[in-house]
């Protein structure tokens, strides 16, 4: 049994919970998010030579970065940074959260998801900006919890990165 702790990090209402709701196995209700501030789900990803269970810690989204419970990230091997593609400010929130995590626990692999790609008419992130982030070698996916576009790809990529 190979498992890895992964934290889903992002601002308020960027769609983390929706991503989790449709694509992973879950036994806890979403009220845990508001009560305990975290909800735990599991995503099994089959890689060519093994299967890895990603234990996903879905942290309650906060635009107030100060109240982010960084202690929940302890022991994580990877991050899923989620940005709402229709609200440019959530990119800064996700990057700041990542910096906080790295300051506390050191660098760790991550994938950056620009979510809500189905809302093309309200898209607020320029291609230039995304390309610039890709130039840094970051793994970036434009996902949609609605259509499921690229969600599995992103989790597979992260599974590859954390088992290397």
């Amino acid at each position, binding site marked *: *049994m190979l498992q890895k702790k992964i934290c889903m990090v992002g601002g308020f209402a960027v769609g983390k919970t929706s991503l989790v709701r449709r694509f992973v196995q879950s*036994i806890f209700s979403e009220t845990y998010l508001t009560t305990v501030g975290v909800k735990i789900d599991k995503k099994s990803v089959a890689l060519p030579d093994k299967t890895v269970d990603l234990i996903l810690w879905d942290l309650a989204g906060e635009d107030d970065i100060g109240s982010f*419970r960084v202690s929940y990230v302890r022991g994580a*091997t990877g991050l899923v940074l989620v940005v709402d593609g229709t609200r440019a400010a959530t990119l800064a929130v996700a990057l700041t959260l990542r910096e906080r995590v790295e300051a506390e626990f050191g660098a760790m692999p991550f994938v950056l998801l620009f979510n809500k790609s189905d809302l093309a008419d309200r898209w607020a992130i320029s291609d230039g900006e995304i390309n610039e982030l890709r130039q840094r070698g970051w793994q970036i996916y434009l996902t949609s919890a609605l259509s499921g576009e690229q969600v599995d790809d992103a989790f597979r990529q992260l599974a590859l990165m954390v088992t290397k």
Partner: protein
Amino acid sequence: MIEIARNVDPDYRAQFEAVPTADPRMETLRQLLVSREISELSRVTHLLNEPEQLAAAVGDVLPGAAARAPHSQLGEALAPAVERAVQRSIQKSPRTLTDILYPVFLPAIRKSIGEKIDQTFQSLNETLRHIFTWHGLKWRLEAWRTGASFSEVVLKHSLVYRVEHAFLIHRNSGLLIAHVTADNATSEDPQLISSMLSAIQDFVKDSFNEKEQSGLDTIRFGDLRLWSEVGPSATLVSVIRGNPPEELHEIVRDVLLRIHEGSSQALVDFDGDSSQLAGVEAQLQTCVELKQEGSNAGFPWLVAASALLLLSLAGGWFFLSWQSGQRWQTYVSRLETEPGIIVAEQHVSGGQFYIAGLRDPLAADPQSLLSGTEVDPAQVHSQWQFYQSLEPEFVLKRLTASLAPPETVRLSIVNDRIIAEGEAPESWIDRARVAAQQLSAGGPVFDISGVRDVSPEVREAERWQAYVSRLETQLGIVVAEQKIRDGQFYIAGLRDPLGTDPQSLLSGTQVDPARVHSQWQFYQSLEPEFVLKRLTASLYPPDTVRLSIVNDRIVAEGEAPDTWIDRARAAARQLSAGGPEFDISKVRDVSPEARAAEHWQYYVSRLEAQPGIIVAQQTVRGGHFYISGLRDPLAADPQALLSGTKVDPARVHSQWQFYQSLDPKFVVKRLTASLTPPKSVQLSIIQGRIVVVGEAPANWINRARAAAEQLSADGVVLDVSQLRELDLVELNHLRQAIQTTDIFFSSGKVVPGPEQMPVLDRLADQIKEFAQSARKSGVTARFMLTGHSDATGRETANASISAARAEAVRALLNKRGVAPELLLVRGAGTFEPAVPENSQAGSSTNRRVSITVNLD
């Protein structure tokens, strides 16, 4: 060389004592060759000989040296010294070391004591609960037998529990290392559970700011407990159902300890791959095997059971034979009381039961009555002959079966007579009568006098009549004629189209609609309700009109245009013959013109009530409104007042002349604008008079007095008698100081010399202080800078030089922070000399800038 050797080592000195020392050449040579080394050497020697300096030098390097020393050797070397030091410290003052170790020991001690107390309470609880019970006695015996304490025995029997799951959770990441389950125990995904458990631990720790190393000890949910034991790298959570003893903590802790001992490095290196820790599961298994079940052992059940069996065998046979005889007698007496059964004979022989008699086929089956008596049916031998019982119950049953009475007939038994009541067709009554005659010999009486003869036709006619009378009570329906012929119903009459449909009233009456033949003529009912409906439909009254019925009269109320009133009047006339009265006298005629005129009048009255506006003339002509008059510029704008009055501004033609209203309110507004009273002054209107109260500078009071005189000619009273001159006593001194200051200049210069700078500094401070104090009192202070020149030279040049001097001082004061708008400048030339000009000294006194203070 000897000399050098002598100096380096004192021992050599003795050996070479014979060699003369005081050779001056040697000394010179020595100085030349090694003077630096000698001084360095003597410093080092000095350092080694002085304990304090040596200690300081070694102290500098000691921490570095200790850090670089091989650890094992250093530890060994230091150990005895440290031990002695600790010993000494404890002897001297145990308190110091206690304080140091306090935070380390306290949590462990606290936890240990807590568990011990829990254990004691648990033991006490259970002991008290069982002390006076049967178990209690039994357990006391067991305690006496085994030598254990009573409370131990109680706990052993009463604490029933089972460890259902054991989760070994990685402490850092919350990932599941291993999970084992007891047989038949189920749970959700253990990976998710273990992560959530550690999240909750974090949550509690964060939420209550708990710094301690330990985590959540116990979570309890009904019958289920979660116990968690925290180790250095992993947490062991056991899920226990039931009531576990406190010692279980120690057992679980032992398992955790063994796991840590066995796989400590693997636990530290754990990165989510649990294959490295496969052996752990076997150790966890020992946890879930822990349980205490409700114990049945200890009592010799087998012996007791066999003894009981012997006893039963001995006494059982006698009891059973007696009991079965009793049961048989109970059964027989029950049969004898059963109606329709007559027991003729019964006896018991050789354990078998024999019975014979008569029974009615409608009576209860004697065989079925056996069930529940515990008499074995196989031992019963019966002989029953059928007969017809004449008991009323049986006769009633037979009559019900043979006559099949209709639902409308009810059969019952009253005083041993069978009575039939209700309604039935004639044919059934005839059959019942025959049956009654047959019964008469010996049986009970069958009374059918209570059954009414009801033919279907009669019933239908009744229903029809109910329908007709229902129609007759309806408003707007008049039944003229109705009859029944050959099973068909005929009805004719009048109906109002607005009334209820007679056809729809048929439903629920059970009259067959197919057999109803109606002929309805429409007519207009003159009932007020119908007339109201028709009027509403034909007249379309506007929203402002309400129609209602008052004492059979139809009354219209509200407002309507005259066209509608005309139509309503015509309708009222048409109604007059025989119908209800239609009263439209309460409807007011409202034509658009009338309404517009009303709005206009409202606007005019609003204007007239406005202070500062005098309406001289107004007319309405050809749908246009004309108005003229006077208005004060400070009064409300008549145009703005139009809004909200619903008067069309395009149709309003105004001619307004401005005038000054003598209304005190307006006078006050004008005065405020023209006099600009200081803040310390208040204008108010008291009984039509304008009263000025407060403090003001003298010149403002003078202006106010002049205004009062002017106004009195117009008959307006402006009372300034309560005005007081502003009391600036505290400022007078400062004012004096400012006004006696002069800035002096050299001949022909417009900029004061450096010796004047302190004077300017002081002056600037005084001016600022004065201006600020004056502002606090509500007045503005202004400072007039007047430039002067001496009499030498041309007059025009002197005039311009004097003005330039004043400007220069203004600039210098401004530079020192005095607001420029407070400073006024003028040049006086030679016209206001300070001293008569007849000497050199006089000239220099007159070359100056003087300052005067004004308040307004």
